[in-house]
């Protein structure tokens, strides 16, 4: 077993430190620092990958992190096929996207800051993949979330970007809270937090289910599954390489990775897996429908990502571990490719509305063709990588006996092919719909596109494929139907057919184009009430809690005549009642001191008489 995997995340972290501290002096060189670090990580990851294949899997301890009162927590790394595969994907895609970013971010003021964040992300993501326990995973999990936040609001001068970053962070954090509770519950029930122990925990099923579902909450947030998917489309406010790396290829896949990593927990009881499956299915379908009506090139891809992640969840949920993880890998390549192509297009035309583009294939050859390759891959056209993984998922769903889910998956596949080619046809073909001065991007951008395209084509062959002719046929048919429909709608019928359809199903269209009103519902049910609750709490705090015990302040603040006091008493009302009563005492007692000496004597003797009376009655 190889024992240097823990070095993989260190280089990007070092690059982050260098860039954040000396970024201003390094300027463009900071890109080289980051890319260099990624490349070293890639190299080590490759060695690990090969070593793993040769020496077998396992995990080893790196260092002690917590230790107190007989309790300790050691951090270690897991090296197994899943982590090795993901390490390779992340390092490869990450390195390529960073190279691409040199071109994309060329003119940005905060160039070095961008690469610093990218390195931080790389480090965190790699750490996440290598974690061998929940705490370590949670740490890096939040770390990638932070990078996501920082990079989404990288152009923070844009209010939308600032808001989107916050939305992403908080939405995922809601899921993370579930994860955290799950971790706490797991620890309190089993005293272990290591993944390697998940297989035989020896606790009852219902508790196990609860833990699994809580952990799944984290995955739902991170992988933008329904109902926490709302942040991902907004996250497209970030620079496109970020969208490609974080919000398509790697970070959002972490949720799927988490489920896969803790699969033992889910397998222990079937009810938790069903949840995963249905959440995945709903997400996949819902996002796909939204993607069909959206006009923003990046958002279409974002919904597509959500949909594909749902697909993976669905696969895992029905027990298709292999298919799910396989799709995780292939998706990383082709979705990164698609985003980078989209970025290249945006870079060229400075708009994201697809209906302002058109006919770009002619002007942007490299971008255009790689775009098409990506689209074919995602649509599931053989022999590109997407075909193999998607096909495997579909067959696994059917094999496990879930006809309803299979139906949803099939429809989703159809929709996927449709909206992808809607995009392709509208953007690359036809005539330009507005005045565009499109030009091909520089080589630093197109070369990574090429490499990714190659991966998108060939990644399907990284593992042996089982041929199931019938199933394959079905898959191909679905893809073809989707592409064909898109062709009919957007090439042949160009804008003739969609309009009547839209009118015919106006309610449906409205529902879908408004993203099922999920954001609005959250706004009304969660955000506004909690803001109002905060306001109420603040008012309660300053008026009631403070007021009731405000006797002190009141006494010291007010001094003066009885009249004045009376006014205040009337005006201030009930809240300061306690204070006022004391104040009244003070004023009244003070008035006892009339200055009239016989009053004094009278009071003294009155008191004396009372004392004697007490003694008389008490004594007998």
């Amino acid at each position, binding site marked *: 077993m190889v024992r240097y995997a823990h070095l993989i995340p260190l280089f990007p972290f070092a690059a982050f430190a260098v860039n954040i501290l000396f970024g201003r002096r390094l300027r463009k060189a900071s890109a080289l620092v980051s890319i260099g670090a990624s490349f070293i990580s890639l190299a080590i990851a490759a060695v690990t990958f090969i070593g793993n294949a040769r020496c077998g899997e396992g995990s080893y301890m790196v260092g002690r992190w917590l230790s107190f009162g007989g309790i300790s927590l050691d951090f270690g790394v897991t090296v197994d096929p899943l982590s090795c595969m993901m390490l390779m994907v992340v390092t490869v895609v990450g390195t390529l996207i960073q190279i691409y970013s040199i071109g994309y971010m060329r003119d940005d003021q905060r160039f070095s800051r961008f690469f610093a964040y990218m390195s931080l992300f790389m480090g965190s993501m790699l750490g996440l993949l290598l974690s061998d326990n929940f705490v370590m995973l949670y740490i890096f999990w939040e770390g990638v979330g932070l990078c996501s936040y920082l990079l989404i609001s990288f152009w923070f001068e844009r209010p939308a970007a600032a808001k989107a970053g916050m939305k992403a962070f908080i939405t995922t954090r809601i899921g993370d809270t579930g994860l955290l509770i799950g971790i706490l519950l797991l620890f309190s029930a089993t005293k272990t937090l290591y993944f390697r122990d998940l297989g035989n925990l020896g606790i009852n099923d219902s508790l196990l289910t609860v833990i699994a579902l809580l952990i799944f909450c984290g995955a739902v947030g991170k992988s933008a599954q329904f109902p926490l998917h709302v942040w991902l489309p907004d996250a497209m406010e970030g620079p496109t390489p970020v969208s490609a790396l974080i919000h398509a290829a790697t970070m959002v896949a972490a949720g799927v990775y988490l489920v896969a990593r803790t699969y033992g927990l889910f397998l222990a009881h079937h009810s938790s897996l069903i949840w995963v499956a249905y959440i995945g299915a709903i997400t996949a379908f819902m996002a796909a429908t939204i993607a069909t009506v959206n006009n923003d090139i990046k958002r279409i891809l974002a919904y597509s990502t959500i949909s594909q992640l749902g697909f993976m969840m669905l696969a895992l949920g029905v027990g298709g571990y292999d298919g799910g993880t396989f799709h995780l890998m292939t998706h990383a390549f082709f979705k990164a490719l698609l985003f980078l192509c989209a970025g290249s297009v945006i870079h060229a035309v400075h708009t994201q509305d697809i209906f302002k583009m058109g006919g770009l294939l002619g002007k942007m050859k490299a971008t255009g063709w790689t775009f098409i390759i990506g689209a074919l891959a995602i649509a599931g056209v053989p022999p590109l990588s997407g075909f193999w993984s998607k096909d495997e998922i579909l067959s696994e769903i059917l094999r496990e006996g879930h006809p309803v889910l299979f139906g949803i998956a099939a429809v989703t596949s159809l929709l996927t092919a449709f909206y992808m080619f809607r995009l392709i046809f509208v953007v690359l073909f036809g005539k330009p719909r507005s005045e565009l001065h499109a030009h091909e991007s520089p080589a630093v951008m197109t070369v990574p596109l090429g490499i990714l395209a190659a991966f998108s084509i060939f990644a399907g062959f990284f593992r042996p494929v089982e041929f199931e002719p019938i199933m394959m046929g079905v898959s191909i048919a679905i893809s073809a139907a989707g592409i064909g429909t898109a062709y009919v709608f957007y090439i042949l019928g160009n804008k003739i057919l969609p309009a009547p359809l839209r009118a015919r199903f106006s309610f449906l269209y409205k529902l879908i184009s408004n993203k099922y009103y999920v954001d609005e519902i959250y706004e009304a049910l969660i955000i506004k009430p909690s803001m109002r609750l905060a306001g109420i709490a603040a008012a309660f705090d300053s008026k009631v809690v403070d007021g009731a015990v405000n006797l*002190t302040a009141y*006494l*010291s603040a007010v*001094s003066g005549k009885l009249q004045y006091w009376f006014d205040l008493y009337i005006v201030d009302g009930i809240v300061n009642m306690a204070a006022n009563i*004391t104040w009244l*005492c*003070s*004023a009244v*007692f*003070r008035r*006892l*001191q009339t*200055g009239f*000496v016989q*009053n*004094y*004597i009278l*009071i*003294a003797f*009155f*008191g*004396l008489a009372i*004392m*004697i009376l*007490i*003694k*008389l009655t008490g*004594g007998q």
Partner: protein
Amino acid sequence: MNVAESVKFFLPELILAASAVAVLIGGLFVKKRAVLGAFCLAAILLSILCMPHSYEAAGPLFSNMLLNDTFSEFFKEISLLVIGLVILVSLGYRPFSDEDAGEYYFLLLAAAVAMMVAASSNNLMMIYISLEAISLVSYMLTAFLKRNPFSSEAALKYFLFGALATGVMLYGISFIYGLFGTTDLSAISGAINAGGANSLAAAVALLLVFAGLSFKCALVPFHMWVPDAYQGAPTPITAFLSAGPKAIGFAILVRVFLKNFFPMFTGWADIAQVVAIITMTAGNIIAINQEDIKRMLGYSSIAQAGYILIGFVVGTSLGIQAIMYYLLAYVLMNIGAFGCVVLVSNSIKSDHIEEYSGLSKREPVLAFMLTVFLLSLAGIPPLAGFFGKFLVFAAAIQSKYYMLAVAGVINSVLAVFYYVKVVKFMYLNEPHTMVREPKPLSVKLALVIAFIGVLAAGLFPVPFLRWIGSSLL
């Protein structure tokens, strides 16, 4: 011990009495109050020096009229401390003239003698006479600003209230005489311990005596004279009133009730407890509203008396130690505070608290000292006032008077309001004027003594506690 044998143990008092007469006569010829004051201080020092000698054969003096013991020695020394500090403060008090200085110092020394006699009185008759002596001298000193209506009014009110209070006490003493056939405390104590005192008449007589002493100690409901008298009296005399008679009043309370009448007193503890709680609460609550610093300190001294009374209610050895320590601390901090008031009023001609605005900028050292004295009165560690409160509450807790202790601490929080109010004006507000007056050396000296005393008694209470411990009854 008869007269002839007693005289040599009476030397400190005799020295002071002789000096008093000497000052009175000297005042006719020497019209410099500084000289007369210095002479008085010298007499006081001499008296203090003679004191240990007079305790070598402590015991009953003058046919048992007096009992010279370490307890009385403690209070005699406190009395001399008070008078000494008051003389120092008086020397720097602007409204006093040189004209009547001889009479003034004569009266102060007479008060010293009266207090010393009162502290060692072992006979109710002697207690009555010496208390009347203290009172009469106090009335006159209060009225010493002859042309000042405040001073005269204060004195008359004080007088009317006081005369009545002592009349009531006298009436009570006459009952005790009727019940026991004697006014000698030791004899009465013997009779009580023999079990002959369970009558209602005895209880009421005791209450009347308590009332008379309450007047001296300013306990509710016999406190009403305090604010008026304190505000109207010349400030050095206010300092004297707040410290001297009160200390002696408590000394006599302890001697009469806790030493000699203890079996009878136990029945009164509940009422004394209520009196303590009402006293401190009333003093504190009313003080919050005051605008005149002397009046405010008057109410504060009422409240302080309430705390001291806690030690009395508890009545244990620790309680008595607490009373003694508290009184010592109280004398230092209260006279210190009034000394500061004297200096401030010398320059701004006002005792209004608002006029203290920005004192820290005008007179930083003075403001600092006044702050320390006020914080000590408020019971903030590590100052003497805190340790006094600590002992008082400790005594209460030790004897399981939890209610009393809780009332005490709540009150000490209330009290912070008005003490800190003065501090607030001094430090947080801007000065109205930047007038700086030269400060008389004598007052500075008094302040330094009080300041060092307050710090030392708070930080290093050991010698003080040892002193008190060896002075217990």
